[in-house]
């Protein structure tokens, strides 16, 4: 399936700047974003449903002419974080150990492991051999704070400024997370290519 966005038809007449014209055409993009955030199709469907209901109720706060896609991403991400907080609180009641989950997801090494270029394929030809599933597998394995910037930038093509709004973070934070997230992803993709036998590492 391609990226073509299909409008949803409703029984009400719709005009320029209406929710139907501005928000509904981004359903595919919001669904993809939700899928990468949650990692499950059923959770993604629930999240998209909640996002659109909230967006509809808050439509009078949307500024016409601004990019509806990033406005919807903001609502989607906030709904996801709220859900995650609820889950965490519930888990804490069951097992306090679960509260440590977020901490364990943060990489301890500030320096990009990949640090530039792989030794055995310096120009990155291995990228051409990686199937999409492997790429998504690697993206989904990134810690959340890096995964979301990589998805918003490299898959959904948002500008740095738009990402800063979605993430409610300063521009500098967005840039540094994106840099680290991409380096981390490149390193993981490289290792996937080695595991799959696309790159043969030399024996020491």
């Amino acid at each position, binding site marked *: 399936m391609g990226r073509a966005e299909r409008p949803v038809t409703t029984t009400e007449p719709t005009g320029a700047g209406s929710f139907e014209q501005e928000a509904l055409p981004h*359903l595919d993009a919001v669904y993809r974003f939700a899928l990468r955030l949650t990692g499950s199709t059923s959770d993604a469907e629930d999240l998209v449903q909640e996002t659109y209901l909230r967006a509809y109720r808050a439509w009078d706060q949307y500024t016409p002419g601004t990019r509806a896609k990033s406005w919807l991403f903001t609502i989607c991400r906030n709904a996801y974080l709220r859900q995650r907080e609820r889950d965490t609180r519930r888990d804490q009641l069951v097992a306090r150990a679960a509260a440590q989950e977020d901490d364990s997801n943060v990489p301890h090494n500030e320096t990009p492991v990949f640090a530039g270029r792989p030794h055995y394929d310096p120009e990155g030809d291995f990228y051409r051999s990686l199937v999409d599933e492997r790429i998504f597998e690697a993206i989904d394995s990134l810690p959340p704070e890096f995964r979301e910037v990589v998805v918003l930038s490299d898959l959904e093509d948002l500008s740095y400024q738009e990402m800063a709004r979605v993430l409610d973070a300063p521009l500098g934070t967005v*840039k540094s997370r994106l840099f680290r997230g991409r380096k981390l992803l490149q390193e993981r993709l490289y290792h996937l290519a080695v595991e799959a036998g696309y790159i043969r590492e030399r024996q020491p």
Partner: protein
Amino acid sequence: MSDIDCKEALKKLYEYLDGELSPTDARDIEHHLEICAACYPEVRLTTEYREALRRAAQGQPCCPEGLRHRIAHIIEKERRTPP
């Protein structure tokens, strides 16, 4: 135009490829990359990465039809509910 070194060029490489640099900074990087053999592999590597992600982005799933209809139904219901 100012001369920049490899460190500076590679530091701003993503921003350059993302189209986030000012025209002046972008020209400085372009000028450096045109004449620097040492930076070439890193540029190729980064470009291949971006291409792979772009390719993968195009193969992503669309919103399922069932969800699309459910949302249309929810919005319709909201519209008919008095505030």
